[in-house]
């Protein structure tokens, strides 16, 4: 082993790549649903189509979508048709080979029939059409193809279905599984995404259950995470959550519900129990769009 260490040291000293960091990107958005089943089968196809063009132009390493793909809240058969509609609009992204990581929102389901619809559409179809629409299968029991983790370069990503936990709606996330996953992570960057806000703005939120929310938030803090992406509220809003006066360990709530669902108007008040956290707003817009995250070494830039 000493010989290997010596060789490594020599290689390092002679390396022309010393100091070089690879830059990579990912895109996040959410809430592409329309307002009715009749309106292009539950998807705002105009806005989502424009987003597809943007995604292809940016060519990110990953594409994350934090739920409410479709209007849903309907029968298994119609929900399946709407998921197929979403998948069809997104087809150029799948064909481009950009990994598509999605989680469900409240409109996408939560019961067994809606889960079947999801699994019937987001499945591996490599043998038939040459594309794999499935999600990673490393989630907790009962949430396979729904909740999962992804490791990419120097980042670890938690994709959280917040609609199916056994004790839902109090436990929006499977905290035991999250703790285990985070304990095994060695990457410096930890990102997580789910549909609901952690700090309540307008609609239902992890913040409706502050004890469980705080356990989730503390687990992210302990893992060195700095950002939680979500949707549910139909706008873009970035706020930082601080509970100790040290901005270097804050986790920011980045709401990216800006993929086509009718825009919500927020009155500027966090209406839930923030559990000792003080929220400071950083940016708000009701424009449709997406967040582009650029990762270089230990640095992350959101635009």
């Amino acid at each position: 082993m000493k010989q290997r260490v010596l060789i490594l040291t020599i290689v390092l000293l002679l390396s022309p790549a010393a100091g070089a960091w690879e830059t990579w990107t990912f895109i996040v958005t959410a809430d592409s649903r329309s307002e009715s089943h009749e309106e292009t089968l539950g998807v705002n196809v105009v806005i989502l189509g424009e987003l597809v063009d943007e995604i292809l132009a940016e060519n990110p390493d990953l594409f994350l979508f934090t739920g409410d793909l479709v209007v849903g809240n309907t029968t298994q058969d119609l929900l399946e048709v709407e998921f197929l509609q979403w998948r069809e609009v997104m087809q150029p992204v799948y064909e481009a080979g950009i990994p598509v990581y999605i989680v469900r929102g409240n409109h996408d389901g939560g019961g067994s029939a809606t889960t079947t619809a999801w699994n019937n559409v987001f499945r591996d179809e490599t043998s038939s059409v040459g594309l794999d629409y499935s999600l990673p299968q490393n989630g907790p029991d009962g949430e396979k193809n729904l909740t999962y983790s992804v490791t990419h370069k120097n980042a670890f990503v938690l994709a959280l279905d917040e609609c199916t936990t056994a004790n839902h709606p109090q436990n929006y996330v499977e905290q035991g599984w999250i703790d285990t996953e985070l304990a095994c992570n060695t990457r410096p960057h930890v990102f997580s995404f789910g549909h609901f806000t952690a700090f309540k703005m307008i609609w239902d939120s992890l913040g409706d259950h502050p004890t469980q929310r705080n356990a989730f938030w503390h687990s992210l803090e302990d893992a060195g995470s700095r950002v939680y992406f979500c949707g549910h509220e139909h706008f873009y809003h970035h706020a930082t959550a601080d509970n100790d006066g040290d901005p270097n360990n804050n986790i920011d709530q980045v709401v990216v519900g800006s993929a086509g669902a009718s825009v919500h108007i927020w009155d500027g008040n966090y209406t839930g129990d923030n559990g000792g956290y003080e929220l400071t707003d950083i940016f708000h817009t009701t424009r449709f769009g997406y967040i582009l995250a650029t990762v270089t070494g230990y640095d992350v830039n959101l635009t």
Partner: protein
Amino acid sequence: MQLDSNDQSVQGHYLPEYSWSYTVPSSGFTFEEFAALAVCWLSTDDAGCGDMDFDGDGIVNLNDLQMRLDMWLDGP
């Protein structure tokens, strides 16, 4: 309260009015980890060396060494 969603189109991401950055601290890199990386040198994740494959490309190589050396002797 909702606005009509059909009166606007996607305008890309939110530059120039929005750009926000942060840096995560390095977790430190000890000589023991350096030795562990040496044991895994040019091995794949399948060989049980995933923890040393810091850039996630499936193999422990110079890129992983470089990432960890940037943390050299940093505190936890």
